């Protein structure tokens, strides 16, 4: 019952993880899901997704309002399909993952790079979302 387990783990995650609201809204989507990390500083939100063994062309990144979606398909090497399988621990096929961003970002300045099997997406915050220092005046 993979579906049921998935629902159970999703419920557990919401209760156990204080960051779950900011975290990926996992869809009940058949396939695999990459692990993600989210970083934040004054200027940017950075999302890193572990996607080993992909081709750059097979990854799509889209932003709809404050929802960032990473999707794609991992394909198996032809050569490996022919042999006799001894061990199969890797996942292949389609994946999709969405993240609700905690702040509005400047859509035009978003940058994504894929290196060493890690997708890094840097999303600059809009000016209004950046923290501001307030001067304390002495009376």
């Amino acid at each position, binding site marked *: 019952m993979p579906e049921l387990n998935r629902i159970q783990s999703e419920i557990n995650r919401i209760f156990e993880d204080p*960051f779950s609201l*900011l*975290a990926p809204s996992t869809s009940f989507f058949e396939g695999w899901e990459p*692990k*993600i*990390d*989210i*970083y*934040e*500083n004054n200027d*940017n939100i*950075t999302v*890193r997704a*572990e*996607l*080993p*063994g*992909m*081709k750059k062309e097979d990854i799509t990144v889209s932003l709809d309002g404050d929802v960032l979606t990473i999707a794609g398909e991992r394909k198996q*090497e032809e*050569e*490996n399909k*022919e*042999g*006799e*399988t*001894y*061990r*199969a*621990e*890797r996942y292949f096929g389609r994946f999709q993952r969405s993240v609700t961003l*905690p702040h509005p970002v400047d859509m035009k300045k978003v940058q994504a790079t*894929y*290196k*060493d*099997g*890690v997708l*890094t997406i*840097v999303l600059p915050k809009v000016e209004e979302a950046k923290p501001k220092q307030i001067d304390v005046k002495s009376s």
Partner: protein
Amino acid sequence: MNAVTESRNQTVQTPQSAQAPGQDGRGYIIPPANIVATQDGYIAELEMPGVSKDGIEVTVEGNELRIIGRRQNDLPDAELCYCESAHADYRRVFELGPDVDTSRITAEMKQGVLRLFLPKSEKAKPKQIEVKVA
């Protein structure tokens, strides 16, 4: 006969129970692996996202194949506010059967996947025997 088997991974611990001393005391992750056998040898693929070619260490000692992957430290200068990846290095050990020619193992690292080719020794390859007409 399974010629590439798991061995001695009990010394490897998951990050949750990390006691085993990794490079920085955080323990190692066991990378997921696929292994297939072809006519000429075995192809092993291990997933190690965050590791470049320079972070890979593959050693063969006797019949033991040891793979270590060390992550690049190129994390963003920012606060980590949600985390799923383990941020630890990778380690996995396999035991090789006598049919693997350990002197000709080759390795290739591409987008976080280490692909090893473990050729069968000439002796172990299947041979066609010609039937002669008497």
